[in-house]
Structure formats: structure tokens, C-alpha cells
């Protein structure tokens, strides 16, 4: 299910901004401050269809509405408004409009709604241009049209990578020991995600090994085992996993390293000509970022439809950037990729015609 278009109403005081996605891979380009990251955040928030659980919007802007249109004519409309707990009248008014099925995806309606906020607190205008760093709540209004098949009931439809933002992974539920000195002294922005990923991959590999053991214990002959769905599923997963590692190793060849497992059986690197693994803490930011990007695509390709990457090239050598998107998109051939970038090296290898310049949006 590919996103074919996103139409955003009332962003940056523009009545309507439309981005069309004709290709499976699209790059958003434009000078700093042109709004690439904001657009990625709005796409993510629009496609975030958690059931009852409403997570904070990744976009800092308010009073916008966006309609995501998919190739199969399914649509999702999402509007994000500020929520001010002490002004219950506004919440009630918006709830009343929603019940009356008044469309929020309409410039005039949104402008009218903005007036509610100004009317109740005349001296405190709340609008994106007045964003002051105060925590701004959110009222999220979402409508899914009947064509929309909700196969991802509890997952957002997109995965978002923004290196400078808090990770959207559920780190609290992981068993990472943040009390170690390393986290106080040397932590950089990729470390949380990388440590989380190492845990998940270890669990996944261990589950796959258990499946293999169970198959062998079923006391069937090898031919019958090979015919079983369980075996085919196991084989597909193992093949895809090994493919990801083989591709990753081509990047590390120049520095004489390869993917390995440490004493906890978790992913790290080692020098090809040495036995001992390199502690993951000692890997460079670029090495961690590259491994992370490959394995999040591998892990999330069946859970989401769209990968949203904000400047994935940060800290990567130009050589590594050259084939990065080709490799990532081949790991997930059924998924869509929308990537914000400043890097010619990322787009030069076959993607020049896949760029949307958002500078004039």
C-alpha cells in the first residue's frame, strides 16, 4: 500500500501544499529551513494510526490538517490542534464539530477553529509562529475512509528516523543497563537506538534458532521438514537476515572489518584477520548508524508501509552514501521510502529524477 499523495492544509500559513509520490523512493531536498523535516514529521503523524493510544505528535506545528492518499484509494485525514487543559470549552467545541462530521481538512474550517483559541484567551495567541518552547498539547482528529484496511491495528504505518530526535523505540521496555559509566560519559545520539537494535536482533536470532531446533526435534525425515511451512518461514527469515549481513559487510571491507557477534551473542564488528570482537561501545558513530539503518529496515519492513529517513547520510562517508538507498530499498522491495537529504552522494547513483525540491513550498 503505497502513499501516492499527501495534501497539507494550513501549514506555514499556506492554504494547501501537495506532495505527489510517483516513485517508490522519493527524496525531499531544499536548503536548510525549507521544511523537509517538518514535512517528514507531518507525514509520520498523519500515518500514525495507533488505536486508543495517542502518542505525542512528532511535528511541532499545530492547526494543520493532512490527507494521505494511497494507491488503492484509501485515505487517512489527520488534524493536529493544540490542547489546553484549562480551556475545556475549546475541547468541547472541537469535539462537537467532530461529532457533527464537520471536515477539519478545510482551510476555512481550520481558520475558524484558530479563532476559538484566540477568542477565549485574547492575550495569548497560540499558533505555530508563536511557538515559544512551551510544551504544547495536542488534539488529534483522525478519519480513515472505508477503503482503508486496518491490518496494522497497533502500529503506525511509517517508521521515522531522525538522528537528532529522541528515538521512537520503546527503550524503557528493553533491558539496556543505562547505569554504566559509558552512558553518562560517552553516549552519542545513535547509541540508544543501536543498543536497542542489538537486543532486538539477538531476540530475533534466538527465536529463529529455537524454531530450527524444534524442527529437528520433531523427528521427521529431512525431506518432510523441508516441505513444512515452518521450515520455509524459517529459511526465508534466515536468508533475508544473511543477505542483510552480506550487503553490510561490503561496506566494512575497506576498513578490514566484518559483522560479528560478541560474548552476549549481539551484533558488533570484528577485524577480519582477528578472532576477538570489537566492543560495540568502540564502534564509530558512522558504523553504528549504518548497521542500525540496515537492521531497522530488515526489522520493520513487514510492520510498516513507509520508511521516513531524515538525513540518513549524517556521519557516513561518501562511499557509503553512494549505494545506501539502493541497498536499503532492495532489503525492503515492497516498502516505500521518503528521505530528506542534503547530500549529492546519496542521490547521484540513479535517484536524480526522484527528488522533490521543497524550497518553494
Amino acid at each position, binding site marked *: 500500500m503505497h502513499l501516492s499523495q499527501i495534501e497539507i492544509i494550513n501549514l506555514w500559513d499556506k492554504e494547501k501544499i501537495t506532495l505527489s509520490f*510517483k516513485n517508490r523512493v522519493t527524496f525531499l531536498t531544499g536548503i536548510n529551513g525549507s521544511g523537509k523535516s517538518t514535512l517528514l514529521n507531518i507525514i509520520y503523524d498523519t500515518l500514525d494510526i495507533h488505536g486508543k493510544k495517542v502518542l505525542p505528535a512528532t511535528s511541532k506545528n499545530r492547526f494543520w490538517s493532512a490527507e494521505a492518499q494511497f494507491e488503492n484509494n484509501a485515505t487517512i485525514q489527520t488534524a493536529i490542534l493544540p490542547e489546553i487543559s484549562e480551556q475545556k470549552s475549546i475541547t468541547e467545541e472541537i469535539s462537537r464539530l467532530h461529532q457533527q462530521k464537520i471536515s477539519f481538512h478545510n482551510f476555512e474550517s481550520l481558520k475558524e477553529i484558530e479563532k476559538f483559541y484566540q477568542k477565549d484567551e485574547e492575550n495569548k495567541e497560540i499558533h505555530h509562529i508563536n511557538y515559544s518552547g512551551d510544551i504544547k498539547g495536542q488534539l488529534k482528529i483522525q478519519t480513515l475512509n472505508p477503503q482503508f484496511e486496518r491490518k496494522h491495528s497497533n502500529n503506525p504505518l511509517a517508521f521515522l528516523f531522525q538522528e537528532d530526535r529522541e528515538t521512537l523505540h520503546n527503550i524503557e521496555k528493553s533491558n539496556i543497563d543505562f547505569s554504566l559509566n559509558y552512558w553518562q560519559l560517552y553516549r552519542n545520539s545513535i547509541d540508544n537506538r543501536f543498543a536497542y537494535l542489538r537486543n532486538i536482533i539477538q531476540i530475533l536470532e534466538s527465536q529463529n534458532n529455537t524454531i530450527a531446533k524444534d524442527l529437528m526435534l520433531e523427528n521427521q525425515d529431512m525431506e518432510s521438514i523441508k516441505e513444512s511451512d515452518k521450515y520455509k518461514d524459517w529459511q526465508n527469515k534466515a536468508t533475508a537476515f544473511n543477505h542483510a549481513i552480506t550487503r553490510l559487510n561490503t561496506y566494512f571491507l575497506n576498513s578490514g572489518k566484518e559483522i560479528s557477534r560478541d560474548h552476549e551473542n549481539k551484533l558488533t564488528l570484528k577485524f577480519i584477520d582477528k578472532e576477538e570482537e570489537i566492543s560495540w561501545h568502540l564502534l564509530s558513530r558512522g558504523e553504528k548508524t549504518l548497521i542500525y539503518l540496515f537492521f531497522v529496515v530488515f526489522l520493520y519492513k513487514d510492520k510498516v508501509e513507509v520508511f521516513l529517513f531524515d538525513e540518513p547520510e549524517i556521519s557516513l562517508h*561518501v562511499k557509503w552514501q553512494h549505494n545506501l538507498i539502493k541497498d536499503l530499498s532492495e532489503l525492503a522491495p515492497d516498502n516505500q521510502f521518503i528521505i530528506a537529504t542534503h547530500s549529492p552522494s546519496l542521490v547521484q547513483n*540513479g535517484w536524480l*529524477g526522484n527528488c522533490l*525540491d521543497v524550497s*518553494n513550498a
Partner: protein
Amino acid sequence: MNITESIPDFGFSTELNEAHEAFEQSLGIITYVEGYEDVRFWTKEFKKLNLEITAQEISATGSANGKGTILSAIKEGRIALGKKLLFVLIVITITCLIKT
């Protein structure tokens, strides 16, 4: 406001290709072609002439109008053709470009 596809203003030029060499990545001579099917054709033709030129499609996923996209990028200065950055439309064009 509709945002449509266009080649980004990243200063694609011979100088940029040469700058890659400082990062041990020699791109050599690149020629952009209209689409994926043209890569094979031009690679063969360059081989016949013993020319080490990489034919590179404008879009790996296809639907872009290669010719129009490249022409407008050249016209607007987003791609500066030079000795290491070429564009082939028809045989006559590439002959002229290679000679320069």
C-alpha cells in the same frame, strides 16, 4: 502549491565529481541517460569506442521523464555539464560532447 519532481540543486558538476576523489571515490566520467533501458545501450556503445564512461539513469525506479527532467536541470544550472559530467539524448549530442 504542488511540489513536483526535479533534479535537486546540489551543484552537480565536474568539480563535484572530482571532489569525490578526495574521498577515494573516483566517479570517473558519468553520462546521464534518459532511462534504465538506455544504460545498457550506451554502456555497449562506449565499450565499442573504448571509452570509460559510466552511463547512469536519471531514475532507478522509472516513472520520471528523463529527457525533460535533465534538460530543465541543465537550463536552470542545476547540472553543469563538463569533461566529467555528460548527458546523452541522441547520438549526435554525445558525439559533440565527447569531442569537447
